[in-house]
């Protein structure tokens, strides 16, 4: 052991002192080592922090102030989309900027509110100023904000104003499918239509495919709009149903609304436009109910088509009388009663059948209970609880019983579908055949008779103007007067092709007014039936349906023509066999 001093003298320490000095030196060495280690660790960490973390502001962090992402916020789940049966987008969620304020950084709320009012004309200065006076750190002011508005807000240079990106529901087709798709609120929860009915699925981010065909929806809406305009009606309703699957291919309720601008309707006092008359509105649809009453009579009473009823005199019930629109001084067979739409004849059949059976049959067709579909909300049918004779007779031809148009269409489709209940669905079905349980409420024989009657009515009856050559339409008109008013509801329910129905369509026009071209008439034969024909023609083009030239189709219902006296037969032009305006 050596210790060096200034004079280069070497002093040797031996014994106990030498040993303790050695221990001390070791400890100093160890301590120095620890200090060096700590220094090195700290140095490395400082280098690490300054060189790597200092530069670790990611692209996403830079962009997050500009356009938020799902991973950044995590909590916000994109609401599922809604598509039509062909994959056309009906409702989507798009991220849009929303303006928020941090009141603690707003020094003069009144001035800022006034500045914002210049950019957003719809906002109220007082409300915005109050919102910015709060003590919280976040107040949502405006949503959505357009890029131009966003730029103008940024130009204000207010520190307390900021933007965040939120999902906003967008409906690219505007009012075209508004009543069926419905709309979602600002918090992205469904408030009506499919948005509400399928809210649980959509909220999970799952997409929903509807049974609707956007092209057919457009055709139906276009033709109903034409009918509304031509007859100055207050509303129009229509639906196209695929009888084989129960899928609703189109559903329209006019007037309608654009779900992208909901606030506008409240502000302009037009909230009624948001009412879905197809599912929620209940109407007396008049003579269309004769289809159900006659079907009930044929099925439950085993009535023969040739059976005749005396319709010469009106039926008196107390001070009321049941009349025919076109009175006949004869005993009419069932086909005649049907094509002349005789109230008296139908009422006589109902009387023979009895209230219990008729009510039971209506119930089997689903006309007396609230219909459930995937679209939220459904109107409750209105009818008297007890059916005395007066109710029985009037209900048989569609007066005194109000149901939704979709319910009537469903019952109508059931009658022609071999009596198998057709349950309307607004969701696309994967299989061509309906997967629902088959419930038969009417015999196949009766259903075949009804198809023939409907076809006969389109050839020689009130539904003549609904026929489209090559497509063999069958259907029934209905004109119901509104109580206490000189107003009516004109409707037509039809199917095609009548011998093997695939599509059922209902057209309802609310309060049409006649004009010169219709000689002042606004009955279903003038209003709803031609609209039906136009819809069929257009949808045939879209769906690529070819006119049927088969013998079976051509001769269908010809055996019933013998019931119609020659003078009552409406002989159509040669075009029925030859050239037809398509």
């Amino acid at each position, binding site marked *: 052991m050596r210790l060096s001093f200034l004079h280069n003298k070497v002093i040797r320490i031996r014994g106990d002192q030498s040993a303790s000095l*050695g221990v001390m030196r*070791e400890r100093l*060495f*160890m301590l120095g*080592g620890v200090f*060096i*280690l700590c220094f*090195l*660790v700290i140095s*490395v*960490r400082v280098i*690490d922090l300054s060189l*790597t973390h200092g530069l*670790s502001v*990611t*692209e*996403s962090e830079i*962009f*997050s102030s500009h*356009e938020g*992402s*799902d*991973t*950044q916020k995590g909590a916000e789940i994109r609401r599922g989309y809604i598509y039509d049966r062909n994959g*056309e*987008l*009906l409702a*989507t*969620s*798009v*991220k849009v900027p929303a303006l928020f304020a941090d009141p603690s950084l707003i020094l003069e709320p009144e001035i800022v509110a006034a500045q914002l009012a210049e950019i957003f004309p719809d906002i109220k200065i007082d409300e915005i100023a109050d919102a910015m006076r709060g003590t919280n750190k976040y107040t949502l002011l405006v949503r959505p904000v357009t890029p131009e508005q966003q730029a103008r807000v940024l130009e204000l240079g207010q520190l307390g104003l900021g933007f965040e990106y939120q999902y906003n529901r*967008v409906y*690219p*087709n*505007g009012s*075209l499918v508004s009543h069926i798709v419905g709309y979602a609120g600002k918090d992205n929860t469904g408030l009506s239509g499919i948005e509400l009915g399928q809210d649980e699925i959509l909220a999970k981010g799952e997409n929903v495919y509807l049974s609707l065909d*956007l*092209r057919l*929806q*457009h055709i139906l*809406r*276009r033709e109903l709009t034409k009918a509304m305009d031509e007859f100055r009606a207050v509303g129009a309703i229509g639906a196209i149903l695929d009888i084989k699957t129960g899928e609703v291919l189109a559903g329209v309720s006019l007037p309608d609304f654009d779900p992208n601008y909901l606030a506008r309707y409240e502000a302009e006092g037009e909230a009624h436009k948001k009412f879905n008359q197809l599912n929620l509105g209940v109407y007396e649809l008049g003579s269309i109910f004769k289809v159900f009453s006659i079907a009930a009579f044929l099925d439950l009473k085993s009535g023969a088509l040739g059976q005749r009823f005396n319709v010469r005199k009106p039926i008196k019930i107390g001070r009321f009388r049941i009349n025919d629109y076109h009175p006949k001084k004869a005993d009419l067979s069932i086909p005649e009663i049907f094509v002349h739409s005789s109230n008296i004849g139908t009422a006589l059949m109902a009387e023979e059948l009895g209230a219990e059976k008729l009510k039971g049959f209506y119930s089997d067709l689903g006309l007396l209970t609230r219909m459930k579909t995937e679209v939220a909300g459904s109107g409750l049918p209105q009818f008297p609880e007890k059916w005395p004779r007066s109710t029985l007779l009037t209900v048989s031809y569609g007066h005194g019983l109000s149901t939704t148009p979709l319910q009537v269409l469903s019952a109508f489709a059931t009658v022609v579908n071999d009596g198998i209940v057709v349950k309307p669905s607004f969701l696309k079905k994967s299989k061509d055949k309906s997967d629902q349980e088959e419930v038969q409420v009417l015999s196949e024989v009766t259903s075949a008779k009804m198809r023939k009657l409907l076809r006969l009515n389109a050839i020689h009856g009130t539904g003549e103007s609904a026929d489209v*050559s*090559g497509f063999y339409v069958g259907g029934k008109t209905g004109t119901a007067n509104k109580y206490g008013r000189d107003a009516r509801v004109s409707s037509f329910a039809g199917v095609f092709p009548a011998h093997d129905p695939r599509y059922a369509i209902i057209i309802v026009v609310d309060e049409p007014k006649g004009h010169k071209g219709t000689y002042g008439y606004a009955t279903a034969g003038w209003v709803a039936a031609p609209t039906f024909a136009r819809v069929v*023609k*257009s949808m045939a*083009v879209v769906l690529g349906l*070819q*006119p*049927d*030239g*088969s*013998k079976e189709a051509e001769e269908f219902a010809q055996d019933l023509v013998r019931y119609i006296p020659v003078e009552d037969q409406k002989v159509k032009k040669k075009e029925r*066999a*030859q*050239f*037809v*305006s*398509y």
Partner: protein
Amino acid sequence: MGIKVRFLFMFVVLFLTGSAVSIYVGHKVRVAEEKLESLDYAYQLEISRMQALEAEYAFLNNPERLEKLAVQYLGMAMPEKIAAVNARDLNDRDNIYVEHLMSNAAYGVRRSQKRSPDYVVEKPMFISAEGTR
């Protein structure tokens, strides 16, 4: 003593090496994470843009809008004059025309069958009204 110093030296070297390696690995992981986050964000951004584009596409393909444009710029209209005709309903003069059409369309109907009573074509045909007159 010598062993202890060597041991300490080795320990320091190993510790420093280990620290450096772990810091390097940590840094690499962090960079990778940031890259992943950045890619994820870019992906989300693209999804968001695609959603906007899809909405725009749907808006542009609105049937009502397309119909208006088709009428306005292409002069398209509903086919008013197309005739749906069954061959069996046609008279003799039309039959000759149908025969001509059918031979052109390679329907396989022989000329010898022209006047045959079985000369009934069940398949409906579209013939323009102008074409037959």
